[in-house]
């Protein structure tokens, strides 16, 4: 049965991308409403963004409507654990680096990122973190002389 294999409306790529661009276009127009548009011969800071906002709104609406007959499906699986660990480790790098410097930041980042893969042990994190911290210190701080804070001030 051909009908059964077709993805439901909520699983269609055009619907989601359409809604995304409609939302983004509307957001651009809303935030940009205060920026002066200027006159055509001397356009203001609001002119081009408004144009782009309208374009996004238009393209988004087109996609949303097209989803009624265009069946390309979205990928409904989300890898929660890898996504959370990878993104978390990046954010952690920023926070720890700000507070205490390069070496602790690398250790914490590797420790968190390590959890993205269930089979990874904490020993991997410790070993990899130490090696990477040493390497980064030698390369960036000693070798390239980049002004990075290394350790707690």
């Amino acid at each position, binding site marked *: 049965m051909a009908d059964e294999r077709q993805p439901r409306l909520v699983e269609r790529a055009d619907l989601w991308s359409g809604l995304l661009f409609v939302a983004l276009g509307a957001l651009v127009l809303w935030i940009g409403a205060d920026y002066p548009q200027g006159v055509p011969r*001397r356009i203001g*800071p609001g002119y081009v963004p408004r144009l782009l906002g309208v374009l996004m709104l238009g393209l988004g609406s087109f996609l949303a409507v097209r989803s009624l007959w265009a069946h390309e499906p979205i990928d409904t699986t989300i890898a929660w654990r890898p996504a959370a660990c990878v993104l978390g480790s990046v954010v952690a790098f920023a926070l720890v680096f700000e507070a205490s410097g390069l070496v602790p930041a690398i250790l914490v980042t590797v420790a968190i990122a390590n959890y993205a893969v269930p089979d990874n042990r904490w020993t991997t994190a410790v070993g990899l973190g130490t090696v990477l911290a040493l390497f980064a210190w030698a390369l960036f701080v000693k070798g390239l002389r980049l002004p990075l804070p290394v350790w707690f001030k």
Partner: protein
Amino acid sequence: MTDLLQNLAFGFGVALSPENLLFCLIGVLLGTLVGVLPGLGPVATIAMLLPITFTLPPVAALIMLAGLYYGAQYGGSTTAILVNIPGESSSVVTCIDGHMMARKGRAGSALAIAALGSLFAGCVATAVVAVFAVPLVRVAGSFQSPDYFGLLVFGMVAAVVLAQGSIVRSVAMVVLGLFLGLVGTDIASGQTRFTLGISALADGIGFVPVAMGLFGIAEVISSLERRALAPHHIEKITRLWPTREEARQAWPAVLRGTSIGSILGVLPGGGALISAFAAYVVEKKIAKDPSRFGQGAVEGVAAPESANNAGAQTSFIPVLAMGIPPNPVMALMLGAMTIHGIVPGPKVMTERPDLFWGMIASMWIGNLMLIIINLPLIGIWVKFLQIPYRWLYCIIIVFCCIGVYTVNNTTTDVILMAVFGLFGYLLTKIRCEPAPLILGFILGPMLEENFRRALIISRGSWWVFIERPICAGFLAVSCLFLVAVLLPGIRKGREVAFKEG
């Protein structure tokens, strides 16, 4: 002609200085090293290693970055042939026949053909760059704002049409990219736009965090999801030289691949990826016995490998001559130039001839280095291939973080990278390609500036875009492209072309 030779001689003088030679070698080596690792394309490679070039003088930095690029390009082919994982997207087609050759015990000849084909293509393409850059710079010099506007629009349309994926979604992604490029302070009025009250965004969203988020971090999550963790089976390399028969088959394919790549590389949206696809399809079309393809046909390695290297090289032409990047990698090179205080565009050739000709000459040298370090040292690269992904991704994340931080010495950019990593991951879920976004992002400010100036020249009349023949020509061709690709017949052909790869 004598001018050209003089210029090239001058360029070689610059590129052959011991210092520049060294940085070219480092670039090619590091590029190959990272390119060999599965799951890291040239964009991520260059973005990650960008900070290493910060302390260098601009010429050395750009020579090294160019080396990184074709090193990464070539490294990706090694991975494709030996483990059937494309190190980067332009070696997807190399996987097909290259890996089949390897499984039939001809891994060595596949690698050698890829390397020699690339060397030949690189040399030809570098000559093409040298010959065509000068007249193009002259043409670009006569362009006015409306013409630049037309050219930018044409560039973006061509990029969308020639790339994979839904046209409408890609156009929308370009528009979103254009918008994101405008976030920050408006140069003309001094007004801060769309910063959401975050003061760090007043200077605009950085190019590096966006590129690294979309192409580095998002890619790591996707790879982990695909369970790229299992140790790969690496094919054995027996003998490195192709047989006489293989060489005879490869030679014409290399020539065809080189021509296709040289032409497609210059086109906006072109470059390595599309060149490789096109070359493969052409080989298959003209072969006497197309069924050999997919079974380890020599031409199926020779043509796309030559084409992607030629395309990678000639895509420097629009960047060097006009300051317009035809693809994301070149957008990154353009960003790197800006970081080093060089304003890309027609003026680079006259104001910084050392940089212009030095870089072109260094491509020649770099291609030769690639052969030397790739064939005899193949054993070392294979060792790097054996690093398991469950360690590798942690290393990638750490280097991405350090790389992004060092561009502006701010952790805001690191957070921004995480944001775009998440965004990029979700975009792939709803089948939106991130490449058009990055192109729009880098072109956004240019587009607005030229649009503004064009309207000043015309005293506010939109007719200016139609009255100037150059601009009108670009816009007409753009429309033609969009209409053509929406016609059912051509649309089918486009889908098939990408599937065959």
